[in-house]
């Protein structure tokens, strides 16, 4: 499933559509967003690098000096402090608060890359959380939507990372054009998260394996659960398809030394969508007990196969059962008599005066 996400990002968008955008959300319970982010990034870049020998990755470094303070100090400080990966050039960006400038820097960089070949580029934003520290939600949303809907030649992928705001432009000849970003859900208001989910076409959220720690458990159990949570988790993805349906996928992930591994979900969880349907007036579900009882019912006309002569039950109770039992309504759920150990259908006739199997034709009293 993580593969399919990467594939979707790689495929890019059709003409006239916005670029696909992935939001990766994590929280303090599963702080592995960067790992997932790096996974997606490496998948994408391996796709790119495999395709074209001339592919380039360029970084817009907004981490080292986001607000331009070092510049303004004019001191002997070394302002050229890149966090470099070797063949990649990084351009320092000092005006994180001015998102228009940021957008134009991104586009400029991307166009430069794209001009070197006829391709598109992807933008990944390492941390939208960091962007939201410096700018308002609406301007960040504006930037993201402009990025997604930029002229079809350029497609930008934005990755978000928690502390650093690195914007890498990945040049791809194989029509990769997408964006993805990382977000820490517990650092933002619900509105901000909802807005970013609104802007993305795929939302991946990381959740801990065991959702709640019961307070009454012993310390040892708690520790073991914590231990589990520290390495594993669940990755849920909601994928907005073009036809308007939402595909929900889930995978387990496991962090190892070498990286992150995704495995299909171990336990089946059904998602019940009863909230969408109008409620009916009857309860059509049978509880477990009711299901067992229904299975035990001896049907009146059925040949039981035990050699006894068939008794056709006509609804009249024998005198021995007594006439002072309370009557109850025959409902959709079959009622059972627990005392007998086997189920029975209890049927109360409307009136005991009715003669069974009368020879008269009941239509005789119609005068036509």
């Amino acid at each position, binding site marked *: 499933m993580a593969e399919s996400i990467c594939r979707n990002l790689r495929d890019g968008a059709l003409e006239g559509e916005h670029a696909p955008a992935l939001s990766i959300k994590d929280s303090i319970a599963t702080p592995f967003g960067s790992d997932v982010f790096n996974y997606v990034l490496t998948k994408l870049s391996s796709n790119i690098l495999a395709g074209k020998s001339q592919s380039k990755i360029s970084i817009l470094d907004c981490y080292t000096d986001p607000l331009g303070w070092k510049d303004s100090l004019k001191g002997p400080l070394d302002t050229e402090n890149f966090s470099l990966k070797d063949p990649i050039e990084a351009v320092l960006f000092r005006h994180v608060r001015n998102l228009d400038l940021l957008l134009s820097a991104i586009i400029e960089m991307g166009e430069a890359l794209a001009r070197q070949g006829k391709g598109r580029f992807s933008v990944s934003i390492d941390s939208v959380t960091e962007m939201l520290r410096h700018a308002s939600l609406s301007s960040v949303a504006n930037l993201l939507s402009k990025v997604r*809907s930029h002229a079809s030649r350029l497609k930008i992928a934005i990755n978000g990372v928690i502390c650093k705001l690195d914007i890498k432009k990945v040049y791809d000849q194989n029509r990769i054009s997408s964006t993805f970003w990382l977000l820490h859900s517990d650092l933002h208001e619900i*509105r901000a998260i*909802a807005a970013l989910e609104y802007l993305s076409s795929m939302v991946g959220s990381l959740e801990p394996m065991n959702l709640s720690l019961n307070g009454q458990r012993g310390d040892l159990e708690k520790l073991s659960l914590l231990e589990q949570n520290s390495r594993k988790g669940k990755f849920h993805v909601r994928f*907005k398809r073009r*036809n*308007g349906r*939402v*595909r929900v996928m889930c995978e387990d992930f496991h962090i190892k030394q070498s990286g992150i591994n995704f495995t299909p979900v171990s336990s089946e969880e059904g*998602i*019940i969508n009863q909230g969408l349907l109008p409620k009916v007036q009857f309860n059509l579900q049978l509880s477990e007990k009711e299901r067992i009882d229904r299975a035990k019912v001896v049907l009146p006309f059925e040949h039981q196969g035990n050699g006894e002569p068939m008794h056709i039950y006509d609804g009249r109770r024998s005198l021995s059962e007594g006439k002072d039992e309370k009557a109850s309504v025959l409902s959709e759920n079959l009622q059972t008599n627990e005392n007998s150990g086997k189920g029975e259908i209890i049927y109360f006739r409307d009136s005991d005066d009715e003669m069974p199997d009368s020879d008269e034709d009941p239509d005789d009293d119609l005068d036509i």
Partner: protein
Amino acid sequence: MAAMKTRMSSFSRNTSVAPAPQAPGLKSGPNGTIFLSSGIPDLDKILGGGFPLGSLVMVMEDTEAPHHMLLLRNFMSQGLVHNQPLLYASPSKDPRAFLGTLPSPVLSKDDRSHNRDPEQLQEKGLRIAWQYKKYFGEHQPNFDSHRDTKHEYCNDFDLRKPLERHFLTAQNICCLSIQDPPNLAALRDCCAKFLAQFSRNNSSISCAGRVAIQSFCAPQCEYSNMEWDMLSFIRSLKGMIRDLNAVAVITFPPSLLSPSSSKRWQHIADTLLSVKAIPDEDKELANLLTGYQDMVGLLNVHKVANVNTQVPVILEATTFSIKLQKRRYLVLECLNQAPVDGSSGSSYASTGSCSGSTKTGTLDF
């Protein structure tokens, strides 16, 4: 004298009281209201004729699905086909580009197969008709008969064919982007100017106008955190529209607003609809609903405008499934639950009669 005067009691049929509108694309309804079409025939039937002039329609979007765009597209196309001026505002940078995606009307009825019912009738052998209403023919209201067949009140739209160019180059389309302006003053002025041409000063209506605002509180708009400003804009728009020959449709994603704002917006609407996405490949839903494979989403009708009347509109069913028939035509169907409980009221397809319906033979109060 009283004897000479024609009886004008409140029990007379309202169709004789209201002036029949001369313009195509409008039809009279009960209580002196005049409807214009939503562009979706099934929705018009559900709402009892269409959107009444002077009302505000709000559509609650689902952030995960673009179904509100389907509704808007049909609404806008219908207006252009009937030559009704249109104002379109959207948070994208180039709203005009959206006009290129508007669907084209299907001109002849033969193209569109009304025969989704007879297809089911062609089962071999025994037919068990447990949904009787589906097989009744569609009752065409009698005042449609004197219309030109080219100007039907409500067209079916083929979503795969774009609208012809000559509709789009008309002078009466105004497009506006609401992404960049820092506040709503520009939008308000544009609406006021546009709506000034639709005042009701004489009894005959020359034309009606349509206003379509898409994703009104989208996060990329700068005003999106000014909730009171947005609310006051909607209120002023509603006030403007109330006594004009126009209908406004606003779509908004309620999850991006604060809960109290979202409630206020829902209350201010005359007609309130909501669209919902459905999960893909969901076995539970596939078992519960027939026709799950063709469904793309759900439409809920929360409120229907009741104009000039105190009688509320009560629908038989409020949840409908949105299907794309042959991937082209938008149809709304009542949810058909698989016949576990055949006596439930929601198992009739494509009905939705309400007290103000245009069916002949019912008394209109």
